[in-house]
């Protein structure tokens, strides 16, 4: 439902506060640091307040806020760290790894999942977290990331391929399902 009048500062904060836990969780997952995550959430609110006249549909406030948050995060990340470049054009080809499901389902791989997620290219990580943790559709992710849906689909797939590779390697190192690569 498009908003007829720009919301007041108070209305914006009240509405945005409804999403503060999801914003915090997303920021924590992105940067891995509680203090920086709080700073990102705060910066998101501050910028949101400034730009609240741009909000056309208050029911889509969460993707709008997430977009601001991820932009801040990516700017900060690009400034502070060397960016990992992956070949986006290379075709994805990954073989299923025997026994990996049992390990993930059994919870024995939660640390490895964390490590593998942290090793992803930033855009891929954001895409897969929005898909798998936030349960967003590709259209919503495209909205948050400002990318075409096809790019989102590709990023999610590449992220998963990378995760499967990483987790497969971790499983082999643990001696799980050795030689089962098919």
């Amino acid at each position, binding site marked *: 439902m498009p908003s007829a009048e720009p919301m007041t500062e108070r209305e914006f904060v009240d509405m945005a506060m409804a999403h503060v836990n999801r914003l915090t969780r997303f920021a*924590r997952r992105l940067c891995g640091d509680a203090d920086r995550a709080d700073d990102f959430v705060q910066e998101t609110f501050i910028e949101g307040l400034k730009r609240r006249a741009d909000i056309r549909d208050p029911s889509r406030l969460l993707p709008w806020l997430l977009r601001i948050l991820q932009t801040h995060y990516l700017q900060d990340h690009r400034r502070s760290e060397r960016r990992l470049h992956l070949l986006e054009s290379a075709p994805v080809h990954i073989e299923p790894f025997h026994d990996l499901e049992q390990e993930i389902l059994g919870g024995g791989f939660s640390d490895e999942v964390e490590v593998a997620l942290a090793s992803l290219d930033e855009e891929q990580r954001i895409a897969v977290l929005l898909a798998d943790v936030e349960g967003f559709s590709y259209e919503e992710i495209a909205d948050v990331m400002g990318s075409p849906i096809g790019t989102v689909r590709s990023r999610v797939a590449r992220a998963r391929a990378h995760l499967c590779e990483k987790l497969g390697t971790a499983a082999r190192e643990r001696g799980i399902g050795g030689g089962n690569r098919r």
Partner: protein
Amino acid sequence: MTTCPDFEAISADVDGESPPEAAAALHAHVEGCDRCRRQRAQLLVLKAGIRGSVPDHHASEALRRKLEALAPASSPSSHRALARRALRWALPAAAALLVVVGGGIALSRWSRVGRESFESQLVGDHILNALNHEKPLHVVSDDPAVVEKWFQDNVDFGVSLPRLPGSRVTGGRLCVLGGRRAALTFVDVGDHRLSLFAMADGKAGAGPRCADGVQGFSVCRRSARGIEYALVGDLPGPELDRLLADGIAGRADPRDGHP
């Protein structure tokens, strides 16, 4: 579908993002293909594993308080809106009176809330960071020049740290106060831990001001060369103000290289 779908197609399918006609063909293939069936199952498990690997972090009370403080509890605009609504129904004279009186009350409330909120924020950050060490330092050094240099590299305003007489710097971190990025330096004066905030001056020309008894702490603020400084601690206000004034004056000394 006779050939195996690519990984991207299976990945999209586990997200329910396959177009209906493609989904039917893909499912038919997966049913009869051991490799694709295992791959799809693996992706479903991976998806669940990623969801399960993310702890359900909640926003802290401190963060919630800061966010709530970004907007006044009752903003002037809502008072104006109320006044507008009242004007539709009241007699013009009564309405005019309402606007004048109501506007005055709203304005005084606004400035009081804003001032209290900012100084409370300063004290809140002092308690959180300097006393309770709830947040890690971004820069650790007892050399004020090192701390100053770190801030200069990380904020978009020229931080010049006042050298408070008889003090020892321990480090600093970045924070956000009243919507402004601030450089927070931890300073020990004797047994007293002080917080020295520096931020771009939002109200150029505002005079020095001190407040005692803000949640049991004193807060002194001064502006110099486009930077607003705030010193927070448990020393009496006049003593904090003198430290801050002397520290700022020290940096103004041409021999210091900061005219």
